[in-house]
Structures are given as C-alpha cells and as structure tokens.
C-alpha cells in the first residue's frame, strides 16, 4: 500500500470538468479536473503519479479552497 496523497482545490470555484475516475492511473501534472473562478477556467493537476483512489467532486459543484477533491495512491 503506497502513500495516499490528497489533491486539494487551490481556490474557491466551480467544477467544470472531472477528467478522471477511481482506478485511473495518472502521472504527475496530468490534468484531473477543470475549475472555474473569476470567469477563468484553470486545470487542477495531479501532484504525484499513482492510482486515483477517490474522486469527491462532480461537474457543476461549487467547492471551497482546500477541499479534498481526490486521493491518489502512490505506487
């Protein structure tokens, strides 16, 4: 069992797209979601490589800063 790293929302915003799901393998800096704030769409990327263990958000949701949006287990 590898270390579980949370992916947190950097700012308050609205989730536009969720580009990953549980079980996906991602590399560091892969885009895993798109968030919109101040009329700008910005990608949220994976901080580490690994397997996505949990995805806590869906499109259209407004999230606060520091919300854990996903968990990635490093291998």
């Amino acid at each position, binding site marked *: 069992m590898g270390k579980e790293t949370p992916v947190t929302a950097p700012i308050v915003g609205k989730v536009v797209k969720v580009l990953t799901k549980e079980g996906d393998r991602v590399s560091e800096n892969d885009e895993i979601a798109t968030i919109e704030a101040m009329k*700008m769409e*910005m*990608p949220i990327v994976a901080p580490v490589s690994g397997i996505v263990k949990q995805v806590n958000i869906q499109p259209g949701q407004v999230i606060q800063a520091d919300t854990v949006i996903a968990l990635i287990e490093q291998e």
Partner: protein
Amino acid sequence: MELLVKVLKNTGLYHLTWQNGVMIAVGGLFIWLAIRKKMEPYELLPIGIGIILGNLPLARLMNPPGDIQQSGILGVIFHYTLYYHNLLPPLIFLCLGAMTDFGPLIANPKTLLLGAAAQMGIYAAFWGAILLGFDIREAASIGIIGGADGPTTIYTSAQLAPHILGITAVCAYTYMALVPFIQPPIMRALTTLKERQIVMRQLRPVSKTERIVFPVFAATVIILLVPLSAPLIGMFMVGNLLRESGVVPRLADVAQNALMNAVTIFLMLAIGAWMSAENVFHIRTLKIMGLGFAAFAVGTAGGLLFAKFLNLFLKEKINPLIGSAGVSAVPMAARISQHLGQQANPKNFLLMHAMGPNVAGVIGSAVAAGIFLSILR
C-alpha cells in the same frame, strides 16, 4: 425646385466629410471588436455606436446645454455629468468598490508595493509626453492611461485636458483589452523559468473585521495625504463598505448591477459621441496612442522587476509574475499571471495572489491622479 435643394442641403449626407466617414468606420470597428472578438464589450460597444452617432452631421446629439430645445441628449449628459461636473467616474468607482474583494491585498500587504511599482508606467508616459511636446497637463492625462483604469483616466483628463478626453479614455480601454497580448512577452522576457515556477503558499484567511476596517481606514489615510484623490478613493471605499458590511445587501446589489450598468451606458456613450473627427484628427492622437502603449509596457515591466527586487530581501519568495498584475486591468492582468504561472508550473495557482497587486493598482492610479491634480489644477 428651390425647396428640394434646401431639403437636400439639410441632409447630414450633404455635410458628411471624409473624416466623419473614417470615424464612422472606426466606430464600426469597435463594435465589431466588441461583438466578434469579445474585446471589453461593456466599454467598446457603446463607445463604438457613440462614435458613429457623434460623427453623423447635423444630428446635434452632442449639442451642449443652451437655449430651450437646442441641446442634444448626449451633449447634456456629457456636460452635466462629465465635462462641467465630474460625476460619472466617481460613481463608477463606487460601483467598482462594491465589486472588489480586498481579501488578497489584506492577506499580503506587500502587494500594495507591487501595485505602486506598476504605476511606473504612468510616470514613464508622463515624461515621454513632455518630450514629445505635450504641455504638462496633457502629459499628466496621457500618463494616467498607464494606470490601466478607465474611470481614473476620464476623471483626470476631464479636469486637466478635456480636449483629449475621449482619446485618452479610448486608449485606456483599448489597451486594457489588449493586455493579454501586451503583457506575456514582457513577462517571459523579464523572468527566468525558475522564477515563474515559484510556488506561492495559500493566502491566510481574512476576517470580516479586517474587511470592514480596511476601506474606512484606507480611505481616511489616503484622503488625508492626497485630498484630491477623494472623489475616486472615497467613492471606491464607500462601495467596498456597502459590500463588506453585509448589512445592506440591496444597496450593494444596486451598486454592483443596476447603477454600474446605467452609469456605464451613459459614460461610454458620451465618450464615444465626443470622438467627432474634429476632436480626433490630429497628430497628437497618434502620439497619445503610442505613449499609452508604452505606459502599459513599462508598467508591466515595473511590477515584474520590483517583485524580483523584493525577492532579494524575502525569505518566502514572491512569484514575480504577480507583479505585472499591478497594471490594474481587473481581473484580466491577474488572469494572465495565473495563466503564465500554470504554464511554468501546473501546480501553481497565482490567481488570488495576483488579485492583490491588481486591486492595489486601482488605488495606486487613483492616488497618482490625485497627486497630478493637486500640483496641476
């Protein structure tokens, strides 16, 4: 037959000059830019149609107040709310204050310095204008274009150089719309990749008390030091207090929506209609356009370089990309800092950090205007 000739001679068409034609085309261009290219539509669309209306001869839309039934609607608006009494820019500032979040600035007060540094563009354009032969009051009005702030530019020009009012205003709004093209090359040229990758830690939460004290305290201090910035800074802080107090949501709502939109319509139409061929067709218009561009470029560089300078003394480094957001095209310049920051480092979120200098720059340009006015009025 004679009557027919008289009727024809009274048509606008008979009196249309080629210069009017060019200005009408310019107005059409602004409308196209607003609609097709989505360039600052809230400003450029009414300005564009205003230019067209102002260049149709004999329409008398810009006739100033005078004898009964002689005035033009746009002339009256222009005269009473802008030219003779400078009302619309302070009103817009009230509305802007109601839409502004000072949280990032309060959380990181250093960014006030970045906002100040980016106002360097104002002084560069000022001296450039003097060198190009403008008198000191014109130069101040041209310099303020570098503040990247439409209402401040209009407010200053109306008092110091009303004969170039529309030109300075349109330059300010046009270059604000062009910030996504003007800033990035300068930002890349003046920063290293490593600097662009600097991650900035999340801003501390700002309490409601801080948000309420800030506008009152800031307005008091600034106006005591620079009294002639009061119409802009004072109204800005009134709007901000309406927003942050939380107890007058209906007033905040009007300021953010109905009032803002109404004033925008009147102000932009009046500015556009002012731009008749007679007012615009001078060599000085081209000089002003060049100086305005330089102002934005120098301001961008100033903010970036000052951030790098501050980093020499800071343990926790600032990402210099937020410095350029001191050129207060809100929030466009902050978005550009965000974009370039993420290009360099996908994990970096500079947007809220960049909002600090972005709103500080609004204060900075209003203070610069106040200083110019106190010396030159």
